[in-house]
């Protein structure tokens, strides 16, 4: 190509880029500027070369949409060599939003009717790349005309271009279709081939419409000598056979012939795919296809192996029983170097596995775990977990074995499946009563292994498994065989590195195990002798030994449990305090300790039962249930702060307190029946109390308030109206450990020391987590009392009755989540909050019974029935009031 003296050719540009590797960007920028200048040249040669360079740069990721007009200019030159460059540029850069598209229509039209075959072919080719609805509509007649051209290359190209016109302009399909199909009898095989390609695409999109063409395709299949065309025809039959089973019989013979004769793997593979997609009912042909597939799977070429497994995946989906013989081959492939083949083989395996060979398969999968890299390890674990969990563990017959598999999986380094493993272990332990002992034994190996705790401490999902481990150990403490060892392992120092949630579970487990063992040892005199499950070294000897054993355990716990005091999590610290309190109940005298532990045990040992996810549906819906009426708007504000409510409720019309209240009552007339019973006086009490709480809060955290009003707060009574709003306040005080005389009076005499210890612990905790405390104060002081008090006035409230206006939301704050130990239960379980059971008893003994009792009531109720959250809160409120 002649190029003006100063212009760089495409070759120069590429060489330049190669020699300017270090500042390529700059070089390209410079070139781009040159190109812009050159494109404006009037010399067509210069323009063309510039466009050629621009097209090359576009391929490397530089925009050329701005040059669309120049592209059209070059396209319109009469010189073929320039034209080709222009068409190439257009095909690469034009799309529907290109604004010069209109200019292209005529250009291409001219090319299509040209006598020069090259012009026709570049015109058609460009059209297929840039076709839009407008182009398709304007040019389809010309393209269709070319279908009857005398030149075979032109005919085959125009057939293919017709298809992309159909896509943009579907109306054209019907008038053109007959002409297209006529070319199936074209003299030129390549034209037939391209028409078949078009029909293949059409059939795959809408196989129904082309069923009646099956005989035609059948004839072509018999006569075809071109592998490319045979493959397309097989694809067509692959789409048609599922719709017309009789076709299967018809094409089985030719298909067999092809499979026997062909040397081409691609054609053979196409046959197998066709068999798989619609002919699985014909045993002969399936047998033959599987025979060939075996060669694929066992071939050393990774591509054939991969495709073999891909096809097997399809067969497994349709006829798993005939593919069973490939199980071994698939298992062998788990050690190949190619992750794609391995994944495919794993999918085949998981489709093939049956109840009988589950154990063997899982063992063989797990064999590959140690040598695998992290991603593959996780993939293997994932497959095992999914296979076994399928249809509620339908394939697992030996749960004891499976629990050990789960424990083994949990130990896989870098595992990301901790959550799933934890769920399955807990699930099995809960559902299968006979498995509980095995579960406790299985998790024991995790529990006592310090390396596991270390591994969890470094991050990774095994911490979740440990959480489940601790829960199972505590929940099924009766199956624990070595309490001392268990408690020791629950007190490992490494646990402090685990997430707080897990720590809390560990502390709770210690409590449960200890209480259970103590009960077993100390209380058996009253029952039949020695029938307790918690056997320990000296159990069957003398009674003093038993007492000593409990003492030993108690000392062990007391010595080490202090480590948890450092936890930043309030729940861990609280549970630790509870545990300490329970330990301090021990007097050393079996006669007095026995009943204490029995009582504790009776609370803890309530069994957690699995609950159906549909349980809620079985609770009949109360007829008068009203959930759409707004419940909060007026009421909430009114209670927390009377003045605020006056403004909102009164809406400017009434400034008087009681009047505003009455207005509010009218608004929520029916729903708030219980609340309307609350007298104005009580209401005012509530308001006053809320104000007092606020004052107290100010007093304590004065620095957070702006100067001015905090002085008056100093004189405010801390417990101004104990009488009316005592319960929540006590709760608040006891939780935060603030000095409150009333509390001391409520304590049982014997529990003094326990309580004081606990209080010390708690006050230490308070210093550490002042922020949490602030929240508690606000929660309790500001909002907690009002709903409880209101509910007091509605003692006869039916727990299932409709929600009362204004009762819902404040309660959420009245019982913040970190108070209720039950909140920390096994997350995946509906009915999990058994741990809450343990929170109840010692609280009871310590003395601040009422609010705790309320909490416990609430949790019990939650266990009993699945109610809506709002119902629950209402319920708990009523319970608190009842206390």
């Amino acid at each position, binding site marked *: 190509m002649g190029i003006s003296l100063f212009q760089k050719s495409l070759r120069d540009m590429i060489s330049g880029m190669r020699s300017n590797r270090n500042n390529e960007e700059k070089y390209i920028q410079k070139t781009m500027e040159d190109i812009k200048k050159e494109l404006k040249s009037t010399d067509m040669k210069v323009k063309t070369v510039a466009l050629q360079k621009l097209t090359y740069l576009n*391929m490397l990721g530089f925009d050329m949409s701005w040059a669309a007009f120049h592209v059209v200019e070059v396209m319109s030159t009469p010189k073929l060599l320039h034209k080709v460059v222009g068409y*190439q540029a257009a095909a690469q850069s034009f799309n529907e939003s290109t604004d010069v598209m209109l200019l292209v229509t005529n250009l291409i039209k001219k090319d299509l009717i040209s006598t020069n075959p090259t012009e026709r072919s570049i015109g058609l080719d460009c059209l297929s790349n840039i076709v839009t609805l407008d182009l398709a509509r304007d040019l389809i007649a010309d393209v269709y005309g070319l279908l009857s051209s005398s030149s075979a290359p032109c005919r085959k190209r125009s057939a293919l271009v017709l298809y992309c016109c159909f896509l943009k302009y579907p109306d054209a399909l019907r008038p053109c279709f007959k002409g297209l199909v006529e070319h199936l009898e074209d003299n030129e095989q390549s034209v037939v081939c391209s028409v078949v390609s078009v029909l293949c695409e059409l059939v795959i999109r809408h196989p129904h419409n082309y069923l009646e063409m099956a005989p035609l395709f059948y004839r072509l299949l018999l006569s075809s000598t071109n592998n490319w065309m045979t493959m397309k025809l097989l694809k067509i039959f692959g789409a048609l056979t599922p719709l017309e089973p009789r076709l299967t019989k018809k094409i089985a013979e030719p298909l067999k012939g092809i499979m026997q004769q062909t040397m081409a793997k691609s054609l053979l593979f196409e046959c197998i795919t066709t068999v798989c997609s619609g002919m699985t009912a014909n045993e002969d042909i399936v047998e033959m296809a599987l025979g060939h597939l075996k060669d694929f799977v066992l071939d050393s070429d990774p591509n054939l192996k991969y495709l073999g497994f891909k096809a097997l995946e399809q067969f497994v989906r349709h006829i798993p029983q005939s593919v069973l013989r490939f199980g071994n081959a698939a298992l062998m492939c788990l050690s190949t170097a190619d992750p*794609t083949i391995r994944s495919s083989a794993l999918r085949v395996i998981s489709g093939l596995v049956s109840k009988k060979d589950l154990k063997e398969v899982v063992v063989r999968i797990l064999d590959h775990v140690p040598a695998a890299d992290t991603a593959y390890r996780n993939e293997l674990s994932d497959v095992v977990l999914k296979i076994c969990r399928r249809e509620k563990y339908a394939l697992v017959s030996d749960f004891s074995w499976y629990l050990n598999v789960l424990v083994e999986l949990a130990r896989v380094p870098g595992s990301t499946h901790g959550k799933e493993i934890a769920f399955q272990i807990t699930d099995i332990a809960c559902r299968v009563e006979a498995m509980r002992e095995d579960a406790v034994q299985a998790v024991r190996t995790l529990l006592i292994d310090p390396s596991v705790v270390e591994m969890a401490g470094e991050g990774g999902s095994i911490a979740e498994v440990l959480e489940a481990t601790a829960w199972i150990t505590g929940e099924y403490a009766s199956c624990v065989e070595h309490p001392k060892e268990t408690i020791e392992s629950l007190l490992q120092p490494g646990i402090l590195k685990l997430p707080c949630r897990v720590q809390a579970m560990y502390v709770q487990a210690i409590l449960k195990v200890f209480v259970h063992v103590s009960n077993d040892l100390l209380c058996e005199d009253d029952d039949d002798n020695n029938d307790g499950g918690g056997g320990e070294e000296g159990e069957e000897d003398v009674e003093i030994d038993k007492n000593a054993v409990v003492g030993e355990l108690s000392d062990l716990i007391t010595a080490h449990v202090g480590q948890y005091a450092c936890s930043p999590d309030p729940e861990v610290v609280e549970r630790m305090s509870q545990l300490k309190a329970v330990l301090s109940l021990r007097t050393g005298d079996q006669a007095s300790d026995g009943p204490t532990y029995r009582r504790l045990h009776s609370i803890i040992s309530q069994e957690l039962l699995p609950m159906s996810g549909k349980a809620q549906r079985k609770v009949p819906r109360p007829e008068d249930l009203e959930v759409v009426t707004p419940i909060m708007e007026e009421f909430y504000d009114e209670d927390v702060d009377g003045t605020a409510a006056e403004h909102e409720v009164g809406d400017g019309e009434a400034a008087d307190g009681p009047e505003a209240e009455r207005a509010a009552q009218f608004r929520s007339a029916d729903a708030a029946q219980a609340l309307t019973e609350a007298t104005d006086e009580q209401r005012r009490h509530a308001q006053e109390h809320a104000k007092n709480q606020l004052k107290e809060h100010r007093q304590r955290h004065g620095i957070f308030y702006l100067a001015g009003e905090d002085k008056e707060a100093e004189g405010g009574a801390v417990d101004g109206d104990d009488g009316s709003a005592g319960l929540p306040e006590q709760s608040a005080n006891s939780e935060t450990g603030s000095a409150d005389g009333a509390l001391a009076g409520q304590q049982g005499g014997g529990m003094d020391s326990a309580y004081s210890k606990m209080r010390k612990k708690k006050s230490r905790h308070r210093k550490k987590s002042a922020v949490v405390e602030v929240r508690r104060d606000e929660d309790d002081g500001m909002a907690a009392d009002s709903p409880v008090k209101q509910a007091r006035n509605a003692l006869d409230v039916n727990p299932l009755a409709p929600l009362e206006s204004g009762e819902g939301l404040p309660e959420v704050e009245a019982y913040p989540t970190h108070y209720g130990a039950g909140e920390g239960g096994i997350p995946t379980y509906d009915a999990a909050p058994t741990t809450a059971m343990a929170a109840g008893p010692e609280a009871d003994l310590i003395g601040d019974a009422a609010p705790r009792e309320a909490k416990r009531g609430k949790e019990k109720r939650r266990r009993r029935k699945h109610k809506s959250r709002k119902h629950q809160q209402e319920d708990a409120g009523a319970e608190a009031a009842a206390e």
Partner: protein
Amino acid sequence: MTIKFILLVNKQGQTRLAKYTDEFLSVDERVMLEGEIVRKCLSRTEKQCSIIQHRNYKVIYRRYASLFFLVGVDEEENELAIMEFIHCVVETMDRYFGNVCELDIMFHIEKAHYLLDEMVANGTILDTNRTNVLTPLQMLDKQQQSS
């Protein structure tokens, strides 16, 4: 239709030829797609299979000396047929350029494009007969020489 794109990439990951059929991708999308696919393919060893799944494309690639030939196809296409097709392309290029190398394709990219256009039209394999493919190309060359 079934072939969505053909890429020629060297082992440093530089695109030497890119041909998209069927659907239009913006420049940025192309660059991103090429980057992803090339990274995936280049990281594979010879012992691994040369078929990968990327987004909704099946990508089949073959390596010839320093050059990777990648073809992206839809779900229906036969992988082995595409492998054969790639080989056919390479043989045709070899016949045309005479012992084809990366530089031949770079410096004569318009010829390479034209050659591919003769073999693939509208995402479908049009012709795999070397003589048929090369005849129009050689005619064009003659014109160029005479001009």
